């Protein structure tokens, strides 16, 4: 245990995802040794992100206004929605330049073991968007791992009565991975070759 401020910082850093006690200690001492100006810039970036960034009222993506850049763009196809788990997946898909529709960010995947059920995700909001009948295709681009697949299964069953076209990214995306790690070419191909889900 260190005294006051140092231990405080280690504790706070240790609460971040993927940061264990050892890494927290390493980052804390790195910050202690860094220039004051550099540390202030980091602190400001942290405060600013909380003050300026919110979530798009339409799709749930990160946004600096009430709607995100993509939802505000009149050139985007309003008839197609691509469902992803996180905002970082939007970034990964945008990089492929294959998709011209809009997104819906669920905020995670169904994971009963972590206590995350359908009600904990932005599924009700998705159903509201689908209710006006403007949407013709729903692309399920949840992660190609078990929880992503289960979430896609759940959504496909839920929207089935609405009679719209439901597709899933083609295989070719390695099962077991995170969408964010897929390279542009692979992800682009998975988009082109997306298959209809029949339930």
């Amino acid at each position, binding site marked *: 245990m260190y005294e006051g401020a140092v231990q405080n910082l280690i504790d706070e850093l240790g609460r971040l995802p*993927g940061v264990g006690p050892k890494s927290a200690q390493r980052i804390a001492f790195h910050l202690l040794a860094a220039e004051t100006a550099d540390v202030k810039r980091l602190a400001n970036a942290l405060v600013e992100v909380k003050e300026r960034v919110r979530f798009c009222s339409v799709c749930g993506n990160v946004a600096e206004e009430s709607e995100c850049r993509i939802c505000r763009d009149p050139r985007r196809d309003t008839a197609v929605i691509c469902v992803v788990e996180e905002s970082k997946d939007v970034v990964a898909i945008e990089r492929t330049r294959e998709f011209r529709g809009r997104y819906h960010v669920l905020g995670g995947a169904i994971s*009963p073991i972590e*206590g995350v059920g359908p009600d904990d995700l932005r599924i009700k909001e998705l159903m509201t968007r689908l209710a006006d009948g403007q949407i013709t295709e729903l692309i399920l681009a949840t992660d190609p791992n078990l929880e992503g697949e*289960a979430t896609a299964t759940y959504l496909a069953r839920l929207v089935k009565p609405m009679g719209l076209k439901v597709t899933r990214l083609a295989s070719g995306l*390695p*099962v077991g991975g995170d969408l964010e790690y897929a390279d542009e070419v692979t992800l682009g191909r998975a988009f082109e070759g997306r298959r209809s889900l029949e339930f």
Partner: protein
Amino acid sequence: MSLYRDEGVVLRTQKLGEADRIVTLLTRRTGLVRAVGKGVRRTKSRFGARLEPFTHVDLQLYTGRTLDVITQAETLRAYGESIVTDYPRYTAATAMLETAEKIVVVEKDPALRQFLLLIGALRTLGEDTHDPRLVLDAYLLRSLAVAGYAPALEECAKCGSRGEHRAFAVHAGGSVCSVCRPHGCAHPAPQTLRLMVALLGGDWPEADSSADRHRAECSGLVAAYLQWHLENGIRSLRLVERS
């Protein structure tokens, strides 16, 4: 560093750092094992889907200081594919994995019967021949029995007098006779108790012919009984869907 080989079912994975995962497995010879799968989350990972939950894998590991490290994994049977395409099946299977981990509890203490019970249940679930919730309840009852917590169903949990008793007390250990009956008992239908007996004994023709309301009552009793015996409870049980 010592290498060992075993086979096991992946129960759970948790993200570790940038691209690794901590993989919890129930193995045939070693029991519960927590091990690191390096680089699993990268899409070009050599492990691919082999370290996903529900996969039965043949593994090579080396003993680490805190966690073991997986060096090789070959799929023996991927139960996930048949389970994940059906939501009620998926939620039932997830509750099984969570129960397996919480009922075995101690790491590296061989639990062969629990292992065999789990792969049997996953196989049955994938074959889609019975209601997923029945398969789950059968698994939960037998897993409790293997752990030494079988509920009394055909005798009184307190005095042992034989017969079909009308009261069921979770904290007393199952059915109780009218003399021993404590306050706050459940009074399940006789058919519900018979269903529990059938599930515990593997009598599928009897279990499959049960009525929905008795299945629902059975699930409720099994869940309450399980939560009473496992200190931390089974989180995923709340999300199990009836088909």
